[in-house]
């Protein structure tokens, strides 16, 4: 019995000694983007008691995979509301997974919105359009939350830009999002061009678009795409650029 008491006391001493090391490791892991998921009451409500227990025990990712498959089943049944609830749970469990945010946004803004517009059970076209726009906003919300959780990745900025361009026809927003995406590590070169194309359609941002596209035009003689050249020529006219500053290229 005495030895057991001594062992517990030694364990407590070890607990004191290890605490600074554990806290520093915890901080280092969080700084590296690890252990970032908040296991709180919000998650508890989304995944239920058993799911929360599984998440607490270190099985977040298998649980997220399971719920994602559930969401696929909901998709097959076109249960859009259930899908959104499952996507909320999955993205809460795995907020660092870009794929989940991106696919959730795509399902809502493209699939659910189209289904809402073609919903034959809703006779009012105005209401169908309103429902469609709600799904657009839901898709945008996923991407914006995903970006908050993964600000260093170009991937979700690109998806947000595409959504703003294709669904909201918000060229200013799309241009800014493409621009932000193009400045992040690993971004493909076309994102810079796309930022220029969208900003060119944004009132008041033509000068920024021109400077961006001109810089790309000068930097990459081999990459002078037809759209880049055409957009630059249009901007030159609209901005009244002096003729000696204008580009000479024909569309290559």
């Amino acid at each position, binding site marked *: 019995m*005495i*030895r*057991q008491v*001594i*062992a*517990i006391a*030694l*364990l*407590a001493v*070890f*607990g*004191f000694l*290890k*605490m600074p*090391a*554990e*806290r520093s*490791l*915890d901080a*280092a*892991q969080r700084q*590296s*983007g*690890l*252990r*970032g*998921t908040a*296991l709180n009451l919000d998650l508890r409500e989304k995944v239920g008691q058993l799911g929360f*227990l599984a998440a*607490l*025990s*270190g*099985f*977040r*990712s*298998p649980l*997220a*995979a399971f719920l*994602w*498959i559930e969401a*696929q089943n909901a998709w097959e049944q076109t249960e859009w509301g259930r899908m959104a609830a499952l996507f909320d749970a999955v993205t809460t469990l*795995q907020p*660092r*997974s*870009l*794929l*989940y945010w991106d*696919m959730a946004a795509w399902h809502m803004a493209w699939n659910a919105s189209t289904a809402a517009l073609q919903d034959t059970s809703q006779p009012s076209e105005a209401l169908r359009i309103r429902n469609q726009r709600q799904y657009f906003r839901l898709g945008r919300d996923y991407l914006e939350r995903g970006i908050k959780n993964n600000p260093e990745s170009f991937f979700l900025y690109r998806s947000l830009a595409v959504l703003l361009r294709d669904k909201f026809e918000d060229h200013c927003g799309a241009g800014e999002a493409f621009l932000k995406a193009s400045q992040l590590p690993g971004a493909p070169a076309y994102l810079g061009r796309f930022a220029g194309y969208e900003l060119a359609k944004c009132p008041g941002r033509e000068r920024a678009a021109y400077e961006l596209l001109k810089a790309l035009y000068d930097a990459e003689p081999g990459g002078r795409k037809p759209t880049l050249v055409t957009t630059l020529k249009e901007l030159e006219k609209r901005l009244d650029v002096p003729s000696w500053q204008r580009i000479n290229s024909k569309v290559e």
Partner: protein
Amino acid sequence: MMSVQVAVIARNTFTELVRQKIFYIILVFALCAIGSSVFMARLTFQEEFQMLKDVCLGAMSVFTSLLAILATANFLPKDLEERTLYNLLSKPVPRFVYLLGKLLGIIVLLALFTLLMSAVFGLVLGLREQSVLAQTRAEFHDAPEELMPALAAVKAATFNANLLPGILIIYVKSVLLAALTLFISTFATSSLFTVMIAAAVYFIGHLQSTAREYWLQGVDIKWWTRLIVAFVALLFPDLQSFNLTDDVIAGAPIPLSTFLETFALGWVYTAVYFALSALVFAGREL
């Protein structure tokens, strides 16, 4: 002399464990769980690979932890029941050597188990990758300039360098759990009691960091709540430190220094639990 004794006990322990049905049952379940992920509903290839990694690494984490606790909990009760412990300790074999041999046996078994599951995981992932690559080549047959980026996207979605440290951390966590279970079994009265306590410690260990921060932040809480969280923070291991695979699957890289610190912390825990086991077991009446 002692190292030879440790090696002999470790080898015998390993052989005994490999012969136990529990090893094969857990192994078959683990391999089925990993292997079956290949038959999952056809999703996009990124989704499919994400699911595959989620399920496989999750299964590896569950089954290695399960094996570590179940196999270790049985050591002392079994040796006492079969009286092999008395035969062994009647010879000039110190008690800590016996425990060290047992612990090394399970550590080797866990390494083999992790290796087998990793091999199956790698095989399943590799086969799916080849299949998707072949499909991509066929689909982009008419657009050769698009082919290279598409193939690169498939490759980027399958293997990444962080999977290896992720698997090593799953292994070191299972070793820690084995040492912890060994410590519990030195004062436990039955293997069932050991398993139950080890399982409870497993769950509490995942909340330890929350309790620690609650305690250290000095928020306005009652003295007895403070006492409980201090108890949890001091006596239980922080198992959340070893739960990095969820983030690894999501693509978060593990910096080398963080990996090495986590890995070393696992072995420090193991050494401390082993020392405490030896302390308690040295005074145990047999």
